[in-house]
């Protein structure tokens, strides 16, 4: 098991998840001050032939009565136990007002 803690340079986005050896991911993703409980999975580069990059997907939501849902995919650089960079894209949809948002950026080890 490894802990990934990475944050964007402007400190508006961060990820704090546990990466389990079985490929599961659990933790939180913070987006502009709001925290989302997320879960998903990942694969390490070169763990099988043809896997040339480490990649993941996550989804989850806030815990409010009218939750906002989040999904994220990304590519990691560095070892799976401690990635030094994540290229990430995040999508959000809010049940409170039906709005959607997107973000694409880079998270670096904090």
């Amino acid at each position, binding site marked *: 098991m490894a802990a990934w803690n990475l944050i964007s340079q402007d400190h508006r986005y961060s990820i704090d998840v546990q990466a389990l050896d079985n490929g599961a991911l659990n933790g939180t993703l913070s987006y502009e001050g709001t925290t989302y409980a997320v*879960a*998903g*999975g*990942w*694969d390490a*580069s070169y763990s*099988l*032939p*043809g*896997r*040339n*990059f*480490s*990649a*993941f*997907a*996550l*989804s*989850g*939501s806030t815990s*409010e*009565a*009218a*939750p*906002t*849902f*989040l*999904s*994220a*995919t*990304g*590519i990691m650089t560095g070892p799976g136990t401690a990635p030094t960079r994540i*290229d990430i*894209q995040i*999508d*959000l*949809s*809010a*049940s*409170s*007002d*039906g709005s*959607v948002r*997107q973000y*694409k950026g880079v998270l670096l080890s904090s």
Partner: protein
Amino acid sequence: MSSWMLRSPDHALMLELNSTGKENEILYGTLIYKGTTYSVGGSWAASHSLPARKASAFSLSGNNGDAVTKWIAATGIMTGSGDAPTRIDIQLGVSSTFDGTLDHYTGTLLPSSDGLDAFDKVVVLMLENRSFDNLLGYMYPNGVPANAPLGKTFEGVVGKNLSNPIPPGVKNPPPPGVTAIPVSPVPDGNYFQPYPDPGETYEHINTQLFNLIDGGENAPYNLPSQRPLPQPTMNGFVMDYIENYKAEEEKGKDPTYEAPPSEFPWTGYKQIMQCYPTSAVPVLTTLAEQFAVFDHWYCGVPSQTWCNRAFWNAGTSWGRVVNGPSLTWTSDSLGTTIFNQISNSGFSSPLNWKVYSANPGVALTSLIHALALAPYHPTLPPPAPPFIPNPFNHFYGFERFLSDCAAGQLPAYSFVEPRFITPHNDMHPSSAHSLLYGKSSVGSVLLGELYVWQVYDAIRRSPDRDRTLLIITYDEHGGCYDHVAPPQVTAPNLKGYTLEDNFDFTRLGIRVPMIMVSSHIAKNTVVNTPMHHGSFMKTVGRKWNKIVPGAFPPLGPRVAGAPDFSEVFTSDTARPLSDWPEIPKPVIPQSFWAQDFSQAPLSKFERQIVEAASTMPEAADARARGITTRTPATIDTVGEALDYLRSIPGLGPDEPRSVLK
């Protein structure tokens, strides 16, 4: 629980989900994005299930279940009830462990069928040894029409300045100043090209991919030493054609750049860079344009016929890479096929299958899958007395295909073989000294065009027409030029099998033509999504699992991770008969049919068929009872081969040539 099925108007994305609850509950199912199927799970919240919830929203994540994983995550807003959303505005991302790309998609999904109800019957006509560029590369010279229903690009040869270099030190060099051979059209009236046959075994294809000769049939099998392997350059076709000509076709002779004036024209090594203009293959190109063409369909293995055909119907070749030694195929081929899955789907299953072949007793499909399909041969095998019809027979002649079409009696799955033995109409490039090459002959491409026309015309006239999907494809590229590097892929389950030539099966073969014809496919449909032979079983398995749940598990990880081709069904309503084009029948001179081909030398491929047939139980029985004393080693001509097969009860005879006209 409720189920949602929605699709984007551009067919890039289909969603099939099951939801539970009305407040904040579970969501699970599949997303099919650009042909790849993802298993996903997540949660959703229904609008107005609590006062603060003004909209229904969800998030999901999952992956494609492939060893070369792609991860997907999506969020969206639903309109309509949670039981049956009438619209989903979705945004999703995909990250690939293969190339490190991040793809993003935003779109709207509307209620739809899954596309799989567009057909009840599927007919596969698998021809031989042609690349995509060789037959279809000159299509869409001005691009895909703006109003085309799906893909807006076409990966052909026009406007790309494609060429291959002349190998250094070639014995018969081109004219001074010529250092590369550009792609050009096959000359008018030539249906032989490339003649003689290019190299098609694993090591030859490696040379075609990487322009390298190192080891030949021995390690490293003409592969570069770099690991992981670099991207293929696709510039070794000229080098390999020259090499194969010297080593296999005209042993010891070096080919010239162009044919000497004294020879019948169109030989010479520059021809390997020639691709057929659309006017030369009007049946294929008309169907591809009037219905659908896939411009990134790859065969299963960078190698030969038997392995690629095995990948189509069994999802693996059990570690085998080349046809030979064909003598052992019939004892190695234990693996389950899609035919077995259909037969095992139960007495109440409405599904059935037939293989149609010019020689049903030795259909190539029955040789490749000899043990798995033994119960379904035309006659009962020994020790039953010869010629006792097998009540469970699934192998029939092509004439039966025509009558089944006419009577509306096609099974759920028809696999149609061409004639492999001279006069072969399989489109396979002919071997040196073939009687299909010459001034009074016609060439396998024209014979193949006629065969495609026969199959299409029979379906067009059939009462099954609107419920039938016709798939016209090729087993492998056969050494013919193509400019697109094949991608990596998940290997099948290889545990316990010897890896021939040390190949790990993580690379696909070269592109082959793939044309689909259906009343539910709109004109000018171009599918750009990369697919491979495993996509066939993946898609029909998904369809048939809905008819007989659980009967069609993917045959191995290659099929499980294969893209689904259901995006090809671009028309919700069936086109009328008047919109099925009437294509002129290709004309073969009567003088051709009158020829005697019995003295034609046996090609390698033809010999492999005879060798494999000689290992069937029927042949062993015939030898034991003294009906035949011949062995394949004593057979040198087409006539001897056919006489041999006809002499064995249960294997011969082949169909009369008149069926091919």
